[in-house]
């Protein structure tokens, strides 16, 4: 069995290097040369260049919290799946979730056999007291045949660059790089080949970055929203003593308590009441940023409402501005979520690429996505700011 898997894996590992693959080697990558002056001078100057780049079909990147979710994502049409190990090296470190070494091997074999890629999320910040789990996870990813690492910490990037120079690096949303200069820094120093943008930029800002950037741009298409400076948010540490960038979770499950009462459900984080849901009110994840608080005598969402991002409405624009990959959030969700959301996005991307002028969001797609949305509602988030 082992032999079959290895041979198989080697055979298909060659696919990502074909010229048509989004993972094809790019001469711009991994050289330390400064970008040409025209790239960083005037926006107007680069617009001309942008028009010469043909729009390509973006890669659909789907979440896998278990081997079963991975298989369902691949079967439903994901171009790539992302997964993490069962420890604090990734930002969805929940009990019972994620992959052990055997499962990673099986997942890589399953995906590669069907032409899909496997990205390993290694996107928390290494603990200064003991960096071994993070560096060990880089070695694991390389050994198991992962196609790329999704990384946030410069120490982890440097380790990968020095020990596994052929392993592709994607800059995680947790690195919170929102400017051309920040992304370019990571490219020049660590050779990152893709940047996942935080969910705080407008469509025109994303377009600007996609035009300028020497690396591929990946954006979130659907899933729970984070409005903070991702990877640097310490909000939950005020209540739980832990934060996403070191423990891999916003609200550690051990600190979460729900209490069913006659008037609804109380949500508490480490004993602190963060929300009370009435019997008819939709609910969201128990994070501080989505709680309701008394502020200046008024009770309400002080930071953000529980809602999911949904960018189906601007998909043709995302493709035409040159976004190379679209990510679906939700490694913590069940395989049924992964399967159904992946199917919707597969159909939508295929439809938007086949005939962009005729593209329209089908009611059935919206209905499926809204069904799975946090708080039962979705938004274009920062992509669309009508008041601007």
């Amino acid at each position, binding site marked *: 069995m082992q032999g079959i898997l290895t041979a198989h894996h080697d055979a298909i590992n060659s696919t990502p290097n074909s010229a048509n693959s989004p993972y094809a080697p790019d001469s711009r990558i991994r050289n330390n040369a400064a970008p040409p002056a025209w790239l960083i001078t005037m926006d107007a100057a680069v617009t001309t260049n942008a028009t010469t780049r043909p729009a390509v079909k973006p890669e659909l990147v789907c979440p896998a919290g278990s081997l079963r979710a991975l298989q369902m994502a691949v079967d439903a049409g994901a171009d790539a799946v992302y997964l993490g190990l069962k420890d604090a090296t990734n930002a969805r470190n929940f009990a019972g979730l994620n992959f052990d070494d055997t499962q990673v091997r099986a997942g890589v074999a399953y995906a590669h056999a069907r032409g899909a890629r496997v990205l390993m999320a290694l996107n928390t910040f290494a603990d200064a007291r003991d960096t071994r789990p993070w560096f060990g996870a880089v070695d694991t990813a390389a050994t198991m045949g992962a196609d790329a690492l999704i990384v946030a910490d410069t120490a982890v990037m440097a380790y990968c660059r020095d020990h596994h120079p052929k392993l592709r690096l994607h800059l995680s949303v947790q690195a919170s790089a929102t400017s051309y200069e920040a992304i370019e820094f990571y490219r020049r120093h660590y050779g990152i080949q893709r940047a996942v943008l935080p969910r705080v930029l407008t469509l025109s800002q994303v377009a600007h970055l996609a035009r300028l950037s020497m690396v591929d741009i990946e954006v979130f298409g659907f899933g729970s929203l984070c409005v903070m400076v991702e990877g640097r948010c310490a909000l939950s540490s005020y209540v739980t003593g832990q934060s996403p960038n070191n423990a891999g979770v916003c609200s550690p499950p051990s600190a979460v308590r729900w209490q069913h009462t006659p008037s609804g459900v109380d949500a508490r984080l480490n004993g602190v009441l963060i929300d009370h849901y009435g019997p008819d009110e939709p609910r969201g994840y128990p994070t501080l940023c989505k709680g309701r608080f008394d502020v200046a005598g008024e009770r309400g969402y002080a930071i953000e409402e529980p809602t999911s991002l*949904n960018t189906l409405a601007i998909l043709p624009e995302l493709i035409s501005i040159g976004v190379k990959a679209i990510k679906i959030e939700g490694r913590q969700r069940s395989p049924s979520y992964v399967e159904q959301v992946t199917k919707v996005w597969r159909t939508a991307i295929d439809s938007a690429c086949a005939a962009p002028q005729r593209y329209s969001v089908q009611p059935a797609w919206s209905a499926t996505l809204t069904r799975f949305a946090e708080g039962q509602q979705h938004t274009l988030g920062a992509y669309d700011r009508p008041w601007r």
Partner: protein
Amino acid sequence: MTIPRETMPPKRHELPPLFESLGTHLRDGLRQVVARLPIEPPSFVLARVLDRVLLPRLAHDTRQALQGRTVELVISDLGIRVRLQLDYAGFRVASSRGEAELRILAPANSYIRLMRGEDDADRLFFERALVMEGDTELGLILKNALDAIGPLLTWPGRPA
């Protein structure tokens, strides 16, 4: 900040058709009667079912995490309550006294959809069709274990 949103109209929980066809008065009365019945018989039945469909597929670490912990399931629309504990030999009926470490409240349809691998527990929570009380971490271990295993129930003629 003001962000345009598309909201879904509030949706009623899907009840089994037979139960929904009863009048409200009859339904509430039936629920009260069922709620007074001893928890042992349904707990015993479920324990035997889980011994067959779940136990052989539980990973070692999940089994260890669940060992000796009392889990109470409340089928909220029918008024049925079961209490289970996993020990070295398998699932068994737990004592009806004292607090359960984990309590899950949901209508019958939610349990069926979850056991058939057709739904997402987070979605059911967002939609008010599932509440988890007590040790959330234990609940998450259980949820993630079930997700990783796949459907426990299949209709005849359907592949697992």
